[in-house]
């Protein structure tokens, strides 16, 4: 588990992660939202500095503004508050493949330093140790959204030197691997964990720490990462969550918890 120095300052590392992730988003982004931490980050952005952001869930809900976080990508709340809801084939053809998504916001079970993601299998594909859910929308989100943001908690199990299955292609083996595949999208552009913010090195595309969250030291990051961590020469500290950000986040979680209890 990650060292939770952050908790001493009255917010958790998870809260810092969600808030740092939310800050990556802009009001004019059109964001394809993964469930879990990505969904929380996207909605915090919408409820704070990016009120006009367009959130899209793969269930077909476009321009949704849920009052509580959905448990699934297709909760009724998403449709109730959406500008419009389209079929799943249309979602993947006109909207994702059509190049209309600026940000794909994903979680990951297993990631490598080039932002390649495994959500398929631990062990071999044919006789797996642990069968994971699989790719869902992610393989095409990873290649067709303008940029990819990833958010996940750090651990030696989740941040590995070599992923066991390429579910979703990030920067491959780095450098111009994406261009070699004919991809014109940027690929992974930020990784936001409970300890740090990482961005790909402009040349090698290896994830490099650009910001440590308050109270986190480089050794914490390395202790919870399976590859040799590189730090940007100019890395700095993530600004602490503001009172407003924390209030919005906690209110959202509180509303969500109550809603999921009663229904």
């Amino acid at each position, binding site marked *: 588990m990650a060292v939770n120095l952050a908790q001493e300052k009255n917010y958790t590392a998870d809260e810092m992660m969600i808030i740092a992730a939310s800050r990556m988003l802009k009001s004019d982004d059109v964001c394809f939202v993964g469930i879990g931490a990505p969904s929380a980050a996207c909605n915090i952005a919408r409820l704070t500095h990016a009120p006009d952001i367009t959130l899209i869930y793969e269930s077909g809900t476009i321009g949704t503004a849920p009052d509580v976080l959905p448990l699934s990508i297709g909760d009724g709340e998403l*449709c109730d508050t959406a500008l419009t809801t389209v079929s799943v084939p249309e979602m993947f053809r006109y909207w994702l493949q059509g190049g209309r998504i600026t940000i794909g916001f994903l979680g990951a079970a297993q990631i490598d330093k080039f932002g390649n993601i495994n959500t398929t299998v631990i062990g071999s594909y044919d006789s797996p140790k642990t069968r994971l859910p699989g*790719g*869902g*929308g992610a393989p*095409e989100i990873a290649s067709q959204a303008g940029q990819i943001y990833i958010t996940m908690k750090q651990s030696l199990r989740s941040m590995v030197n070599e992923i066991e299955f390429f579910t979703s292609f990030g920067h491959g083996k780095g450098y111009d691997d994406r261009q070699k595949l004919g991809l014109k999208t940027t690929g992974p552009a930020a990784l936001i964990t409970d300890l740090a913010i990482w961005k790909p090195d402009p040349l090698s595309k290896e994830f490099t720490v650009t910001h440590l969250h308050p109270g986190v030291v480089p050794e914490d990051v390395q202790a919870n990462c399976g590859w040799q961590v590189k730090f940007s020469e100019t890395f700095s500290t993530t600004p602490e969550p503001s009172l407003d950000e924390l209030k919005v986040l906690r209110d959202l979680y509180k509303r969500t918890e109550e809603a999921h209890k009663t229904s």
Partner: protein
Amino acid sequence: MANFTSLEKAVDAVMSDGVCVAFEGFTHLIPHASAHAVIRKEYRNLTLVRMTPDIIYDQMIGMGCASKLIFSYAGNPGVGLLRRLRDAIENQWPVALEIEEHSHAAMANAYEAGASSMPCAIFKGYAGAELKQVNQNIKTIHCPFTGEELVAVPSIQPDVSFIHAQKADKKGNVLIEGIIGIQKEAVLSATKSVVTVEEVVDELKTHPNAVILPHWTVDYIAEVPGAAHPSYAQGYYDRDNAAYIEWDQISADRTRFQNWMVENVMQQTTDIFAKRVGFLAKDKLSKKSEH
């Protein structure tokens, strides 16, 4: 031509061992009652097709109905993994399960192609993705005009598709509203279809561009209020998120799973679904009246 009948009679009419069957509903309107009716009849060697084989396929696989699964995301949405499906893939329990795995984009395109009587679908996808290496039903094809490499997958054309919808009118025209997912395509791509609905009404009063399956595209309709539980039916009752969370515990252990299935599926009838959503519907109405 839509025949109104009981769900049990519809299942008898369309199902047999070894068929390829799809149950669709993308989080919304998942046909749980139909899955339970099929489980009770103990069909074997089914090829199950579903983009998101969540609880219903965990149950069917755990009960030994399936020998093959075609899918794109096998998780308990928002909760975690599917433990019965894992047990089948990892340990061949209760029987071995062959899998054909795709991405959502591939499955969506394949259903669309199936509904269009196409043998295959082409799209852009799987860039750098390893599924291409483990699934021989993912091929490449080149645009005859630009030479661009594209992906092809076979179309999905199940023998039988089951869906749940909000309403049918008395002629058998079916209305689906809200998150419409892939249900229209599931019915239009299948040889036979069974639709459960929350209610049968005199007339479907809705928007001119709402999703409607005309009566002559549907084979059997059964009125089964609550048939989506613990999934939901927009306008009728909310998703029972607690049941999804609870499933993670129930499915964790083989014996607990089996006991639960005996008690809640094998010894039940379709009527139970109306009771299961009673509290959800009431809650929804009271929430609505607050606004």
